């Protein structure tokens, strides 16, 4: 089973990951696939300035008035991709559709809560709350189970 060793190094210019291997097995391939998507950047516009944001920092994406916005822990910026484009491109990074107008990063979810009308409330790690429609539940749980499989 693959080990994860975290080492704290002071005064490092940039964090990095290093992989030690004898053979690339299925588990390693899975981790690498996920890392490739998670280490990608997405380009967005904030205050008329373009900037690249690590995909792993994205909490969720939302469409408002045909424009797509990406939300990090504390900022929001406009991205040029459509929600469908983001799903097609970045599903492996943990993004899943939760309603017609939003996509969430599974890694940024703190917990789920159901209400009496079977709407699922998604509490994120920045304490924001999103609502998942019943129609997207099956895809959501499928993605979550897939992610759990990869983690194993």
């Amino acid at each position, binding site marked *: 089973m693959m080990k994860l060793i975290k080492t704290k190094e002071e005064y490092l210019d940039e964090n990095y990951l290093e992989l030690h291997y004898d053979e690339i097995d299925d588990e390693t391939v899975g981790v690498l696939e996920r890392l490739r998507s998670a280490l990608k950047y997405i380009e967005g516009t904030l205050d008329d300035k373009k900037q690249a944001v690590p995909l792993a920092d994205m909490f969720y994406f939302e469409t408002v008035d045909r424009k797509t916005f990406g939300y990090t822990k504390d900022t929001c910026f406009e991205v040029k991709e459509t929600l469908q484009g983001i799903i097609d491109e970045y599903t492996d990074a943990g993004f899943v559709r939760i309603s017609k107008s939003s996509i969430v990063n*599974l*890694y940024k*979810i*703190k*917990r*789920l*809560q*159901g209400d*009496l*009308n*079977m*709407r*699922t409330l998604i509490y994120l790690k920045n304490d924001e709350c999103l609502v998942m*429609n*019943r*129609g997207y*539940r*099956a895809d959501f*749980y499928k993605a*979550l*189970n897939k*992610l*759990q499989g990869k*983690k194993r």
Partner: protein
Amino acid sequence: MKIIDRHNFISVVCISFTLIVCGKLLFEKMTGFTDRFYTENIFTCLGICVLATFILSMHYYLQRFPFIPVVIGQYVFLIGVIFVAIWFASKFTDMAPSAYKDMFISVTIPYVIGAAAYYISYFLQIKKANDILSKLD
């Protein structure tokens, strides 16, 4: 829970009809009851299976609406259609005085059990998802 659509509609009707008829026959065998209206009741069972499967398949298209009004609305529609069918059938054949009450019980009990199972499975699914999410950290 599997979604009922046009691809599996017939098979869902067939399976539920078989289970209901087998249950009916077992119950009659155990209690020694003889059904005088055997043919009529078998076709009533088939009609209810088709109707109930149709109403449950509508659930998929009503997912954007709140669950409680949908499930109550579907129940009212189902029981309404059954009562109208009993009233219509009573014009052509004799009905037991307790026909409405019997059908009300026969439909309500399985419907409530099914809705409760669906509701409980929903909250269990959330609990399981929360366990997975806590392990992802």
